[in-house]
């Protein structure tokens, strides 16, 4: 199905969860904040929250150091 991630059109399998998407993008779920359709998804919901066609995701990936 077609979704948008950080403004870019992205394809992901139907029935994907947020966690599936993070795996697909090779992002560590502990190092990201995810907003789905303008609402923050708590990380304990990553494995359970199903994505839908036309979803708009914003994923902020933090790197260490400070």
């Amino acid at each position, binding site marked *: 199905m077609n979704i948008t991630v950080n403004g870019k059109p992205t394809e992901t399998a139907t029935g994907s969860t947020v966690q599936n998407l993070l795996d697909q993008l090779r992002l*560590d779920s502990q190092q990201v904040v995810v*907003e789905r359709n303008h609402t923050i998804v708590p990380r304990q919901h990553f494995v359970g929250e199903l994505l839908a066609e036309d979803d708009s995701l914003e994923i902020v990936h*933090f790197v260490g150091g*400070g």
Partner: protein
Amino acid sequence: MKLIINEIAREVPDGCSAGSLRDQFKADADVLIVNGFPAEPDQPLGEGDRLVLIRRGEVPSAGELEALLTARHTPGVHERVRRATVGIAGVGGLGSAVAIALARSGVGRLIIADFDLVEPSNLNRQQYFLDQIGHPKVYALRDTLARINPYVHVTACHLRVTRDNIGEIFGAADLLVEAFDRAEQKAMLVENFATLFPEKPVVAGSGMAGYGPSNGVTTRKAIGQLYLCGDGATAAAPGVGLMAPRVGIAAHHQANAVLRLLLGEDPVA
């Protein structure tokens, strides 16, 4: 003639000497500075001159210090920042520099939180000193801030910030600076603070290791009220350490973003 004496406009007779004005306005001053240069007491002053009268070692009163510190600010800035409360989560390389910049800028209240102690390796980039090694960072930083501007109110929390105490520690803040070290901690803090206080800005730091080009460090807006300062990519790792210049650049991007937010400006545009 009109002069500025300790940042306050005064009307004085023409041709007054620096010494006579000292006698009149601050008799115990032992350092006289005219237009930025040390002056002798017999130096005559002219229209528009700036005279600063200092007694070595003396801490100005709150009102005096306010006038002196804010003389270098852009007009109108001070009244707005002195009413602000800024939270700083983590006072390592980023947080210690942000705290100092904001204290110098006259922010009214800082809430600083960190569990860590000052170690020698910190001194390559963090705003601590040799005689503070072994002390909790928040208390060392509070002492340092008091030496700069004792009229900034500092709440020092020597503890580990977790998702369960973020609200209690930073609830009074108008906005939050994320200044942790580990990516997992950054994500945890931003997610939880933004969920608890969606209307309050967060200014986070991500990507500032090494000595790559300074121009790689930017301020950009991410989700909601989150602003990211850094290059977004250069993680601290073996072989790519954290160094004072680039960490300082990211920290001052953060401090300037805070200032812009407090003054009603978009940090990015």
